[in-house]
């Protein structure tokens, strides 16, 4: 119809505006020094990776990157196991006190992590977890586990009860049923959990800023905060740092797009 061009024009404009900040950042990170005077929306004429090399090596971003990868990967893998295990008990097992556990976890959906950092810091300190990656990982898991338990439970509830009962009659233990029967058919929920927890962990600043004060332990988020605090004028450094942070996430997003969008819609309560 005649309105089609208008709709496409509008959508293209909005999409461009939404991507513009990232595109300009990418352009600028690739510009050699003499091209920095050109407007940020002009692509680089002679692209160079020299700023990436400088940021990666001299500004210690290789260490930050590795720390981020370690924390986020462990977060994602452990979250899959503990959230699915708890969801299994809540969905398939009968035990006294179940409503209490539900209520407790429901409260967890409402806790804003920002508001509890002071006692959390003291807890980490008492347990000797400050300046350890373990301390960050345990807090990450604890703060996000309720949402993933509910996400997994919602998935498990759609699995026919007969499937589990049949396996139990055949003599399988609960652990075997969980590991061999339920988990293998729960791939979508597992992928969503892993992706979302990885993303949240990768992007978090506050807990890492508080718990990791040694430079060699810091993640990309903290590294970026301090880098921009000291190198305010180093546009090439800042834009390449932002790209180092953004590129892995964008790649993962493009591969698992559907899971991301669905998962974030479900997990938006966080």
């Amino acid at each position, binding site marked *: 119809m005649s309105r*089609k061009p208008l709709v496409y024009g*509008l959508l293209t404009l*909005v*999409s461009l505006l*939404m991507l*513009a*900040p*990232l595109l*300009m950042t990418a352009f600028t990170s690739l510009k050699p020094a003499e091209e920095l005077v050109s*407007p*940020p929306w002009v692509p680089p004429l002679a692209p160079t990776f020299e700023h990436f090399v400088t940021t990666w090596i001299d500004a210690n971003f290789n260490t930050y990157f590795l720390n981020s990868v370690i924390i986020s990967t462990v977060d994602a893998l452990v979250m899959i*196991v503990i959230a699915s*295990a*708890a969801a299994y*008990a809540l969905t398939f*097992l009968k*035990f*006294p006190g179940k409503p209490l556990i539900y209520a*407790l*976890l*429901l*409260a*967890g*959906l*409402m*806790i804003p992590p*920002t*508001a*509890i*950092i002071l*006692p*959390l*810091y003291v*807890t980490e300190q008492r347990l000797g977890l400050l300046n350890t990656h373990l301390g960050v990982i345990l*807090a990450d*898991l*604890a*703060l996000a*586990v309720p949402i993933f*338990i509910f996400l997994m439970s919602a998935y498990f509830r759609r699995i026919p009860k007969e499937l589990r009962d049949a396996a*139990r*009659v055949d003599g399988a233990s*609960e652990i075997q049923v969980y590991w061999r029967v339920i988990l293998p058919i729960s791939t979508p929920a597992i992928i969503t959990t892993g992706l979302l927890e990885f*993303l949240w962990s*990768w*992007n*978090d*600043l506050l807990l890492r800023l*508080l718990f990791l004060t040694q430079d060699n332990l810091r993640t990309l*988020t903290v590294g970026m*905060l301090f880098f*921009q605090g000291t190198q305010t004028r180093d546009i090439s450094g*800042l834009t390449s740092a*932002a790209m180092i942070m*953004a590129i892995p996430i964008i790649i993962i*997003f*493009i591969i698992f*797009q559907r899971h991301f969008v669905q998962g974030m*819609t479900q997990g938006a*309560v966080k």
Partner: protein
Amino acid sequence: MAASSRRWSPGRRKRQAWLTAGLFLFPAIALYLVFAFIPTLEVFEYSLNRWDGISPDREWVGLGNYDRLFGDRIFWEAFFNTVEWTAIIVVINVGLGVVLAAILARKIKGRIFFQTCMFIPVIQAPITTAIIWRWMYQPNGAINEGLNAIGLGFLATPWLGDLTTALPALAIAHSWSTLGLSIVIFLAGLQAVDDELYDAAKIDGATPVQAFWYITLPALRPVTAVVFVLTATAAFKAFDLIWGTTQGGPIRATEILATYMYKRGVLENNYGYGSAVAVALLVIVTLAMAVYLYMQARRDD
């Protein structure tokens, strides 16, 4: 299960059920209690003390911190800044979100592509958003250069250095990184709307704007509540974006509850007073979330 458990006494069966369930629940629940639930209770306790977070002696001051809080001009400034910041973000995300979702819900080619473009900012870290937008808002940054280029140079201003523009400018940056999520939630809500309604409206001679007003908007009312609460709570507890750009400045133009709590609690080691600020944040966000979850539960029934 029934076959094997018939031999057991009720007490033993109960204990067995507990043991098995406990095994599955223990890692998640233990972590949650130690690193989330108990700290949440402790915020309230801390807020009744004067304490530097380190020394063994805490001084019980009762409601003293709250008494001070209610008389603290900077706290109220931060509170109203938080409300303004949240309001701007909610208006943008709900307003633009609904319109863009309504357009994307039509059967158009390349819909997934457009949706992806709008969603990519959502997966960026708030600190990445902070770095990029701080750079764009600089006096000679992309925003002002762009305004110059299209002949609107008279609007150019040091966005984050100006007392009146700093907070709205950062709110726009926050919306940039969350709008995609609002759109997707609205889209999910629109899938429930029957296409035949639109066809019928078209036959009756309704314009697309009328169809939007009389069909789309009423159908989206429940989802709008969802987007409203989620956007508002996310904005209310935001910290990274402001900490990565203005840290509350210039003067206190972008001081919000989270940054104020961080300054008093963490930077000044004032755990009691910082916790009182945190309680204000916690109570507001928790109440909003409780209302939201209640609405969700009622809808699911």
